[in-house]
């Protein structure tokens, strides 16, 4: 961690812990608690399609959620009627290679790699990629402003992605 942290209460360890917490909440289908990690305004939960650097106004994404749609995504998952969540997949992800940079407004841009294994309906799937979090530091607490997930296989024929990545 660089000497960036004007916010003395945030350390590399606390950023890592935040990412681990987020990972655990989604792995354990604790969607409401996960949603509470997000800033309510100017939110972007983005999984680009085909390539990492696309112009989302001209190019389709796999997920491109503002806060309203993120809330809808969670509501749908909680409705119990998502067939690909019946039964709920068992999921565990490993977060690693965390690199932290300060960005404008004292926000943090945190890059990390993940490997996620999901098990459901008689098979285990592996997902991998890199995540770029934009985090806001406020009173020593972190919230997510934006999360961009660069899937290794965003340009391949993939199975359903009916969980939070």
């Amino acid at each position, binding site marked *: 961690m660089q000497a960036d942290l004007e916010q003395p209460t945030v350390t590399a360890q606390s950023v890592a812990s935040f990412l681990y917490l987020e990972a655990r909440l989604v792995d354990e289908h604790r969607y409401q608690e996960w949603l509470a990690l997000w800033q309510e305004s100017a939110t972007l939960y983005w*999984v680009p*399609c*085909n*390539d990492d650097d*696309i112009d*989302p*106004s*001209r*190019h*389709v*994404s*796999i*997920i*491109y959620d503002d806060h*309203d*749609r993120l809330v*809808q*995504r969670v*509501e*749908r998952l909680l*409705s119990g*009627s*998502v*067939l*690909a969540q019946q039964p709920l997949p068992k999921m565990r992800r490993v977060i690693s290679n965390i690199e932290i940079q300060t960005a404008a407004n004292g926000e943090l841009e945190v890059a990390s790699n993940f490997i996620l294994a999901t098990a459901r*309906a008689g098979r285990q799937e592996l997902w991998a990629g890199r995540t770029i979090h934009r985090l806001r530091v406020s009173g020593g607490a972190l919230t997510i402003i934006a999360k961009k997930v660069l899937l290794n296989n965003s*340009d*391949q*024929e*993939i*199975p*359903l*992605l*009916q969980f939070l*990545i």
Partner: protein
Amino acid sequence: MSSQFDESPIDYLSLVGGGRVHGSLYRDPRVFQREIEQIWNKVWVYLGHESEVPNAGDFLRREIGTQPVLIVRGDDGAVRVFFNRCRHRGNLLCNREYGNATTFRCPYHAWTYGKDGALLEPTFEEGYDNSLKREQFGLTLVPRQDAYRGLIFASLSPTGCSLREHLGQVTEFIDLFMDVSPSGEIDLLSGVQKLRYRGNWKLLPENSLEGDYHGPFIHRIAFELHSRRSGLKMSSLYENQVPDVIRSLPGGHMVEDYRGAAMSPPARPPTPARKAYIEAMETRYGQKKAHELLSTIPPLVFVFPNLIYIMTHIRRLQPVSVDETLVYYHPVLLKGAPPEINTARLREHEFGFGPAGFISPDDIEIMERNQVGVQAQGNDWQYIARGLHRVKMMPGGGTSGYTMDENHLRGMWEHYAHLMDRSSSSDVH
């Protein structure tokens, strides 16, 4: 039904009809092999749209059934479809999925071809006594190709009906979904979501065009979220059974025709971009036709065997094996519409479709379970008789039915059985 090791011929005509379809048609590898021969290697197959190769040298890799082809726009502006195979030793000529090239050089021994497929450079030509006849070793064009409103189709059979004959009445419905563009042209340049499911390819058209029957059961939450956001009711037809919506057309095509079911206008006043779009539509089509085009949902269309249009996108399907299928969701942008309109179309598309959407993933999950279900062979028939008692024969062929009827599925399966039937002539496609 016989097992897959049985060598006796399959009587396809006996496996379809009377409101039933036999389960073996979804699971028997022999059936799949015959589909490749009788359907994918013969009929007109959709490959892509001319907007995907706008400039000379632009190319795309696609498949016809299980055979790789290469679509290239030449210096003369013509779009050509070649087998994607070097004439030397059969290596895959072009490995990239899309791009722009001045020449196509095989990586194996560097035989090099022009955009028109001509062999430019066989390399170390003295080994052929400097007498290799280049004109005999150009890339091989597919036997037949043609296009309708920019949609590129190809057929691996040198004979058979023309593309226009194959499409028949379905062109009327292709026109309807393309005419929501104020230039009359669409653009498929906004990327493609790709998905793989563990199920037979025929499950996709069956599920994609199903009126409202499964909607309230598997899409309830998605429809609810959509209505709350848009003010439009996605499933209003469900309560209000409308006749003449579900259409089966000659050639195995299927349509959901919503012209008889006008939508209520959106509650919110139009944005400036929407206003500009409506004005552009009126300029092109006149007020009356523009209003007709904008006051209903464009038809949902299935062009046999692999093109589906639904709401926001063209869906291209590609069979892999009897129980595995690839799906490509190409959002349809409207050339000449304000950029905000097209961006909104992308966001609307992502709401419903692709691997992480709120609508089609429930369909994909259902199809995968369907594939498991038909492994159970007691009473080995699917029942598709809904609306059989009230089916209406249409002038010019085909049938029409109510919103939830299955007359379109019966039409598709009859066409399918006809193509698969051993005794049928080679000209019926």
